[in-house]
């Protein structure tokens, strides 16, 4: 589904990604771990096409299409969704208007007519209940005045609305209490199908207990230095990253 080959990327002239290779197949859940500043968020931002990041070398294909040639909105229409570490507040734009614009943009891309008002509200209600988002929140401005937990839940709600093929969860678990984390993770699990995949960036074992990843990668200094099964996450939880840093400096 997603194939990244020798990806290099920089921010404001500083090279952050130094040759990433990654392959995500249908049905898989990948976890990206690594110390702060190792390039995890950069990688997810590059996949979704954030203009602040410059790709200097390498390729990304998604279902065989050249992702780097697409504007961010087309990457979204092709089925890529990123749940933000810090969701953006958009004062004055109601969640309903925002989501409707998003849903209709995708439908237009697929050659479908705009969704009717009634069908849209039905869809909102169904997805809202799926992720346990309060009804009042969809009438408020996007993320404005939402608590940290509400913002993250809102990200999963948007994901449910757009039904992406590949979801990137950028520290969706950070800042959540135990209950909120469970609800968000359960919402995420409900959205999983044999044809979808996910990349989950996290520092915490607890999230992994819920979402049960297939593959764990560890990033250090802009490279993936170790790829293994879920056990790797447990070892990092107990031992940290130092042993990997040491191993790497010896190479």
């Amino acid at each position, binding site marked *: 589904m997603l194939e990244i080959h020798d990806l290099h990327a920089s921010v404001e002239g500083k090279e952050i990604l130094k040759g990433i290779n990654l392959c995500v197949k249908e049905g898989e859940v990948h976890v990206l771990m690594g110390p702060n500043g190792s390039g995890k968020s950069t990688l997810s931002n590059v996949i979704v096409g954030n203009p602040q990041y410059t790709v200097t070398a390498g390729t990304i294909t998604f279902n065989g299409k050249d992702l780097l040639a697409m504007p961010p909105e087309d990457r*979204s*229409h092709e089925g890529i969704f990123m749940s933000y570490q810090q969701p953006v*507040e958009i004062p*004055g*734009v109601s969640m309903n208007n925002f*989501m409707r614009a*998003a849903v209709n*943009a995708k439908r237009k891309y697929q050659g479908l007519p705009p969704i009717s008002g009634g069908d849209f509200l039905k869809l909102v209600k169904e997805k809202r209940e799926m992720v346990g988002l309060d009804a009042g929140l969809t009438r408020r401005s996007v993320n404005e005045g939402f608590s940290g937990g509400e913002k993250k839940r809102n990200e999963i709600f948007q994901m449910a609305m*757009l039904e992406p093929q590949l979801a990137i969860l950028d520290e969706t678990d950070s800042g959540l209490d135990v209950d909120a984390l469970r609800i968000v993770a359960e919402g995420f699990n409900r959205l999983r199908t044999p044809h979808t995949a996910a990349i989950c960036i996290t520092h915490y074992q607890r999230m992994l207990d819920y979402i049960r990843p297939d593959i764990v990668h560890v990033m250090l200094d802009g490279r993936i230095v170790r790829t293994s099964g879920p056990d790797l996450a447990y070892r990092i939880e107990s031992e940290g990253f130092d042993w990997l840093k040491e191993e790497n400096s010896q190479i």
Partner: protein
Amino acid sequence: MSSLQQYIDLYRQQQPLLTKGSHPLINAHRAAALQFLEACGLPTRKDERYKYTDVAAVLEPDFGLNLSRLSLQFDPRQTYRCRVPGLGSSVHYVVGDSVAESNVLIDDGSLFVGPMVEFAQRYPDILRAYYNKVEGDSLAVLNTLLVQDGLVIRVAEGHKVADLLQIVNLSVGSVPMLANRRQLIIMERGAEASILNCNHSATRCDNLATEVVEAFLTEGSHLQYYSVEETTANCNLLNTTNFVQQKDSHLDYASITLNSGLSRRTVNIALEGSHAQTAVSGLVLANDNRHIDNNLLVVHNAPLCSSDILYKYVLDGSSTGAFAGKVLVNAQAQKTDSQETNANLCVSPSARMFTQPMLEIYADDVKCNHGSTVGQLDDTALFYMAQRGITPEEGRLLLQQAFAWDVLQRIDLLPLRQRLMHMVEERFRRGAGACGDCVMCGA
């Protein structure tokens, strides 16, 4: 010949014709107006309140005036069906500067809506007491010199007007015309009314309107006055609006400029009685090389009054916006509560905004704040929307619309607010002047 001199000469040559088309009580003010103009001239850009707008240039062209009060051979009622859905309204047309003959005059003892000349005939003492009572600058005085008729709205003591009173001003003419419009609004003790003033254009010729609105809010009266400008690039406007508020009166004023040529509004509000409240709002959407200037002065002359000011501009193309808002709190105006905000979006690199919120306080126990911002569209928000599939064009639209709607939230009349929100959305979606006709009809 100076811009002003041509009007002075015109007045001198055409005085018999001009006064004939008016009323002695209105004519009585012309001599003093002439004297004032000859002594003071027009404001220049050296005058603090006219720093950004060259009034002389606006008045420079050789406009025609309808001094002989020729009847215009069309009935606006047939062409401009201006209605706000969901709101009962009584509509009154002003064509050029003539109150339309097809209007239905209202004079039932509790409400008068009709031509000023007619009002002067029926109620000379009231007109004498209120007409031209607020001292204005040269622009208002020029209107006093040349105006022949206007519209009077008088709401009698304790009367609450149920319907929205809508005034539709139409710019007309097959040659460049100058229209001198006047409104006198008298809200007697405890009276309540909502007025929607719309400016539209039915001509492709260059034209200019000078407008003077004088409104008196007697003790305990409530007035909502909303002015919507949806004309064309060749319609320039020089408006002066004066409100005088007595004790316990409430004013809600908003001006909404959706499309126009050069537009200059001078709004003066005097809070003369305690516990008077005023909310002043402005929304400006400008593109191309338009120039929109709002100049506001709120004077607190009595204790325990409040003023709440919010103006927002969205400037596109190479348009220029100017806002100056001065809140003057005099020594006797203790316990004044005032806030002033001017927020502006320059959505194109060549758009420019000049903003000047001002506070001048002579009382020592007041709560006042003022501030202004000028910014661009939020790139982070635009990218967040793009990640959800929303194109940059649609994202820009949503952000600008949200920014503008904020002002409309202050309009209490829900059907009117929704109508205006729709108009703003259409304006962003289809561009200025997409609907060359009156957009209030919803066609």
